């Protein structure tokens, strides 16, 4: 299997989700399995497919800070994607390239992240269902969907983290315990920068190496069809209130 690797690029939230879906469609039609790295410009909150937007997101705070909000096609939790603080990836390939079991396929792809973090001297572990931890603290969250014979897994790797900012945009279950909750999240979340003086590009290079290790691969780009389809999907789905406010 010859993987296409799409190098890091930054897009708005709607375009990012639309590109992942456009690639899924092209893989379903016989296109190459793809590893993609990306960032969010402006910063954004992505919601899991089943989450209630009003329960999860401080809408006024996001609007005030110029933060986009998009619902993902995958389940899982709400994520604040800081423009500088994280790297997102997607892996899109035929389902047959991965174990049939959902947990086992998470474990396999998360293994690539674990290999990448090892290059930066970190001893990371897979924590089912969909997290990666270092020293007991979460450094990466991941989400998967399967459709038309295609597996999409996307996720984020925290390079640096600002928990206060995260919870100025995400809602806390109980305002009375906001400070306590932030303190507790700080105890449970880590990032690459907590483990060394790495710049974001070093984190990215480690990810490229870890993801492509032992695979036939070549750097590539979106085809014109994928690009046009992504633009259409961004307009028709991901920018639409009907989609983002579905729940």
């Amino acid at each position: 299997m010859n993987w296409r690797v799409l190098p890091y690029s930054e897009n708005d939230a709607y375009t990012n989700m639309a590109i992942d879906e456009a690639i899924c469609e092209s893989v379903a039609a016989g296109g190459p399995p793809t590893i993609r790295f990306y960032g969010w410009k402006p910063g954004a909150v992505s919601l899991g497919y089943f989450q209630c937007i009003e329960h999860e997101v401080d809408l006024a705070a996001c609007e005030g800070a110029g933060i986009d909000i998009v619902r993902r096609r995958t389940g899982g939790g709400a994520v604040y994607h800081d423009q500088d603080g994280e790297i997102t990836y997607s892996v899109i390939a035929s389902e047959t390239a991965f174990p049939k079991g959902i947990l086992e396929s998470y474990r396999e792809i998360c293994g690539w992240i674990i290999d990448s973090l090892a290059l930066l001297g970190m001893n990371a572990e897979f924590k089912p269902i969909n997290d990666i931890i270092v020293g007991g603290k979460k450094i990466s969250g991941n989400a998967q969907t399967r459709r038309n014979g295609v597996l999409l897994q996307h996720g984020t790797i925290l390079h640096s983290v600002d928990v206060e900012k995260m919870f100025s945009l995400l809602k806390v279950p109980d305002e009375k315990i906001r400070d306590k909750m932030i303190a507790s999240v700080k105890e449970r979340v880590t990032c690459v920068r907590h483990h060394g003086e790495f710049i974001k590009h070093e984190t990215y290079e480690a990810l490229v190496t870890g993801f492509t290790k032992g695979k036939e691969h070549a750097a590539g780009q979106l085809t014109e069809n994928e690009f046009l389809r992504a633009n259409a999907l961004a307009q028709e789905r991901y920018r639409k209130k009907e989609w983002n406010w579905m729940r």
Partner: protein
Amino acid sequence: MRWEEKIPGGKLVCVEVTADGETVAKVRISGDFFLHPEEKIDEIERSVEGLPLSSGEAEIKARIEAVLEKAELVGVSAGDLARMFRKAVDG
């Protein structure tokens, strides 16, 4: 009527039930769990709608499990959702 719960393993799930007299008019399940394929969530919700509000946990669970013959729920189970439905209704 609403019940939110942290499921062992870490997923936070919320079941909201709207009644029309003694009948379940609407069910809304939200949270950070996974379901493949995702759209089956509508079918899960609809499978409970129209039932008597007094329906037992076993009945609700069976309805949800019937939908799950063609879908896979990850991070929460049909039994959890049925229990949460009763909690939402019973308070």
